[in-house]
């Protein structure tokens, strides 16, 4: 192994007029973009599928959503990315126009949606039955009951696991390197190759990943605090008994 650390490597030109530091920050933006867009997909689809799984009197909706969860949960993310990237455009030529970034967002978003749907279902089922009856007693339709009574409470209950899923999503975005999205992991592998300064490069990237995950954690914790209903969350969830 060569001498100790050489942090100057980040100031070197990468051959295209930008420094490795600039390249790394660009890659960081890609990581955040992939993770951010996938997060939106995952939350929307996950909330929808999780809700469908708890619908009364709609066995086919329940079956469909259950199948969705099993399908996207039981195939490795890397394989799912390859399927979206290589197989889907081959079967549906129209998909060839879709940029790679969008395909990765779909794979990561749907993969995570299965896990979020599982949390949402658990959250809804953890609510006392009376909540649903209360909605009915008010004369709400099923949709209204979910919109005004069940979902606002369920989402507050499942906030802590949603926080860890969000952090997982950010970390999982690293798999996008496999289809040449120029995000942090891709940068780390290429810059390591070019500079032979793997330790410095990997340390830089690792710190950015850890910092991003921590930021996600803090933002979610802040939202969780703001969303809290006094007297409700303590009973429902995280803190443990007194």
């Amino acid at each position, binding site marked *: 192994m060569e001498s100790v650390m050489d942090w100057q490597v980040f100031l070197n030109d990468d051959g295209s007029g930008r420094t490795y530091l600039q390249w790394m920050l660009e890659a960081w933006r890609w990581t955040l973009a992939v993770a951010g867009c996938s997060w939106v997909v995952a939350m929307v689809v996950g909330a929808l599928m999780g809700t469908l799984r708890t619908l009364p009197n709609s066995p086919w909706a329940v079956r469909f959503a259950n199948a969705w969860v099993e399908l996207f949960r039981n195939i490795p993310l890397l*394989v799912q990315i390859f399927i979206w990237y290589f197989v889907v455009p081959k079967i549906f030529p129209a998909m060839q126009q879709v940029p790679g970034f969008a395909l990765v967002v779909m794979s990561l978003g749907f993969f995570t949606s299965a896990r979020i749907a599982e949390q949402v279902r658990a959250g809804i089922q953890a609510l006392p039955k009376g909540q649903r009856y209360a909605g009915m007693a008010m004369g709400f339709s099923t949709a209204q009951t979910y919109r005004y009574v069940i979902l606002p409470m369920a989402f507050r209950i499942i906030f802590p696991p949603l926080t860890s899923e969000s952090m997982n999503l950010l970390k*999982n975005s690293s798999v996008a*390197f496999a289809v040449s999205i120029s995000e942090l992991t891709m940068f780390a592998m290429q810059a*390591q190759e070019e500079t032979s300064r793997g*330790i410095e490069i990997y340390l830089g990237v690792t710190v950015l*990943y850890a910092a991003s995950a921590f930021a996600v954690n803090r933002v979610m914790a802040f939202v969780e605090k703001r969303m809290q209903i006094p007297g409700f969350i303590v009973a429902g969830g995280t803190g443990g008994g007194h």
Partner: protein
Amino acid sequence: MGGLDLSFFSWEIISKFVQKGFLFSIELTAVATVGGILLGTVLALMRLSGVKLLMWPATIYVNVMRSIPLVMVILWFFLLVPSSFYSYLPDGANYRSEYSAAITFIAFEAAYFSEIMRAGIQSIPRGQVHAGQAVGMTYAQNMKLVILPQAFRNMLPVLLTQTIILFQDTSLVYAIGAYDLLKGFTTAGKLYGRPEEAYLLAAVVYFALCFGLSYIVKKLQLKIAIIR
């Protein structure tokens, strides 16, 4: 329609390319599960020991591992383990990626298993600890004979679920080119000019295995829940 043609995938091709990778994926999962649970239990005990000198390193280790993407950890270990190390292992020169993957997965999964074991140990009522102390057991005896067997049993479904996730994660050795199940399929696919079909078949195999295993875990969970 582009159209897929799965017909070329014969048993001969499977046994030639996929079997080797499949065996490695299973081996890696087994090694990482056993090693990860052992190391993870040690880490959990360290964190719960109350001795600061043991508690802090274990806590830092677990939290650092859990905040880095697995792919990065795989790359880290591949970079950091000196190549001379592999020369001591059987056929180490040819299987550097595979050995490196095994070390990585033990080290990485230990962090996750340790959190499961910590929850398991904490789920045992304090009375059990006192009971062990009352009959004169040492700390080690108490852990080995009273606490850990119960913790392990309570956490068995969670440990198995983690193992299924682990099995899926082994596909990430793609980053260092180890020859696993996915690599077996992609190699065959490239060689015969059918990469798309190969990815599809890989997905089917992973799905069948993981779906089947999680079904078994679900059944087991019900069984354990009734006994408790």
